[in-house]
């Protein structure tokens, strides 16, 4: 009987701890399109899919975190790479929603697109619940992205000049291989080594794969990494020139080819990967 009592007490304690140590109960309202969050379900979805890496407390210290590179995001800091808002600002709900659906390329963070839209909205609520910043601040307005001008050789040349002038090469290298003189010294906001993007791999970017995504990345910066925001340094036209130049750096090595590429080696592989 004493064993039974002990067990019941232990289980009640476990339930209580689960409730208390989960995402903060004061999760902010989340709205994505016509969907609003269900914080309780969000906690359950977070526990099922996210807790192994991001941890029960959202601090990026899940059981699997020691084995991952890059490390899982620490939600308690409320610092996010992929945003549509200016550097230093909180992300919009849609930014978090899209990151969850897209995943973070070349990391352990998969695309959670297979989850229902409602589940992803619920997870956004859980993520926001880990940091008091979401209670105290509002996200800034998103950085506008003007329509993309046509690609032209003159624009690419101007982009190349900007690449030098803005000293992108110091990290990303003269040929965009991620091997600039500063590359080996870079660290993230937690003093962990971090490597700059290698354009020549042709891989997707961490925060998307379209030209608009690339534009957004260097206008907003990747908070928590050494990649700064150039919103104050370049005009929209210059930003597009830089986008068009960066696309010329991308080639497709065999290791990223699909089976068909390996077999048929079509001439349009580069074009396809650059889309």
């Amino acid at each position: 009987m004493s064993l039974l009592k002990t067990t019941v007490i232990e289980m009640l304690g476990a339930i209580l701890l689960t409730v208390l140590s989960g995402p903060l109960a004061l999760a902010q309202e989340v709205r994505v399109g016509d969907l609003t969050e269900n914080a309780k379900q969000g906690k359950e979805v977070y526990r099922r899919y996210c807790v192994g890496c991001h941890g029960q407390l959202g601090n990026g210290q899940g059981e699997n975190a020691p084995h991952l590179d890059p490390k899982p995001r620490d939600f308690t800091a409320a610092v996010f790479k992929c945003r549509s808002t200016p550097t230093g600002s909180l992300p919009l709900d849609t930014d978090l929603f899209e990151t969850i659906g897209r995943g973070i390329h070349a990391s352990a963070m998969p695309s959670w697109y297979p989850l229902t839209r409602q589940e992803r909205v619920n997870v956004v609520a859980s993520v926001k619940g880990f940091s008091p910043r979401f209670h105290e601040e509002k996200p800034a307005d998103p950085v506008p992205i003007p329509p993309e001008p046509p690609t032209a050789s003159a624009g690419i040349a101007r982009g190349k000049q900007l690449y030098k002038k803005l000293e992108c090469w110091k990290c990303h290298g003269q040929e965009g291989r991620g091997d600039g003189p500063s590359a080996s010294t870079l660290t993230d906001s937690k003093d962990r080594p971090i490597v700059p993007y290698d354009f020549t791999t042709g891989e997707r970017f961490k925060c998307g794969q379209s030209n608009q995504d690339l534009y957004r990345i260097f206008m907003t910066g990747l908070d928590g990494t050494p990649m700064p925001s150039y919103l104050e340094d370049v005009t929209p036209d210059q930003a597009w020139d830089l986008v068009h130049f960066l696309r010329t750096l991308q080639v497709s090595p065999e290791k990223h080819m699909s089976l068909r590429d390996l077999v048929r080696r079509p001439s349009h592989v580069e074009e396809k990967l650059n889309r």
Partner: protein
Amino acid sequence: MKLFLDRHNLKSSFCRMGVLLALASACTPAYGIPAFARKYGLRCSACHEAWPKLNNFGQVFKDNGYQIMNDRDGPIWQNVSYFPVTFRITPQWHREDNNNMAIDHTAGVSTSGLVEAKVTTSGFDLSGLDMWTAGTLAKNISFLVLPSTDANGNFHFESAWIRFDNLLDSGWFNLKFGKHELDTPISEKRFLQLTASGGFFQLYHFTPTTDINSFGGIGNNQLGIELTGHSRNSYTRYALSLLSSNSGGVNLPTSQTYDIYANVNQAFELHNLGLQRVGVYAYWGQSPTYFLTSAGVPIPGTGSGSRPFYRAGTYGIWYIRKLDFSTLYMRGKDNVFLGTGTPFNQPAALPAGAHAPTWNGGFVETHYTWSPQLILVARYEAIRLSQQAFRIGTPLPSGVPLTRDFGNTDAVVFGYRWYPIMTSRAGLAWHQEYARVRIRHAAPVTGRDETTSSFLMGFDVDF
């Protein structure tokens, strides 16, 4: 916070399990692969509603050829010490009842005549051992090899295939070659029952008692090629297989004909209730009615006089948040030569009034996923013969005349699975299950109903 073994030692957890067992003597595997969890750092619960039952993320992962499509799926990206291998075995205690088993009137005296009696066996036991290895050989080239043994160590290949993924750079074209699980409506390899009576879908393996169809059912892994495709989130899926008519047996044991299987399904979101899925499927095959013989002994692979059969139906998977229902309907029909066991080269031997046996069946299986670490499960299954192969009234081997409901089957299963260990490294489930199956007039001596039941409790270990 990490529940159970994360915070408590093994001993105290076992104590709790014992108490839970005493309190609720009625709380529940096939394919759960911690090798993937170790590769990607995801917990079992990321891919499994409750392993081995897949959720939609796991379905997409499987549909992508065991890839999460982050350009890091190829083995070249893995630590050199990583090897994708998983072992699964279930130490257990179980009890089996058969209410009308044929036994010798005097034990040990085979001439004393047969009588029926209730036979019960019980004790500690082991399941077979599955030794999984699966993953990617390169980007978009996947493989799976599953050597498996029974509880006595007899070895066979449950599955062995290679798959070429995303052909034409499209998720709609994937080609699998080898022995594989059919893309069944509701996977029997990933369901949550283990007992001898309840550890399979009756419908997936049903053939009438007098039938000689060599097809083991859509639940059996088959040898052949499979073309599959899916949308990005696998809401829309299809599978089309061309299979040797050997029911998955190796060394070409039966015949040289081919079967076809197809499955198409569509999922949709219903407000915040969850993901709903509906689909249709069909298997069309042939089975031999006689073999070439040598001194009267059939020569393997020479099955001849093949006659057709089919299994077809529709299904749905319905979610009401934590509660879900899997529903399936199947209609089956075997050619009259198969149904009556008559060689096709001896048509005159067909019994008078013989028909192609036909049946309808279905099941409803429900799960309540309390949390990723506890799931309750129940299932009811029914099979009804709508056309017997022989004329009604024909004497059965027991001497009892054939009735319309001969062979009708009802099965119920309920149980639960509790997962004290569910990490990105390994899985352990405590499983309890009760199952009961009744087959009308199947008792071998008296022609009474035959009822079997099973109770099992044990640890399902996946590492």
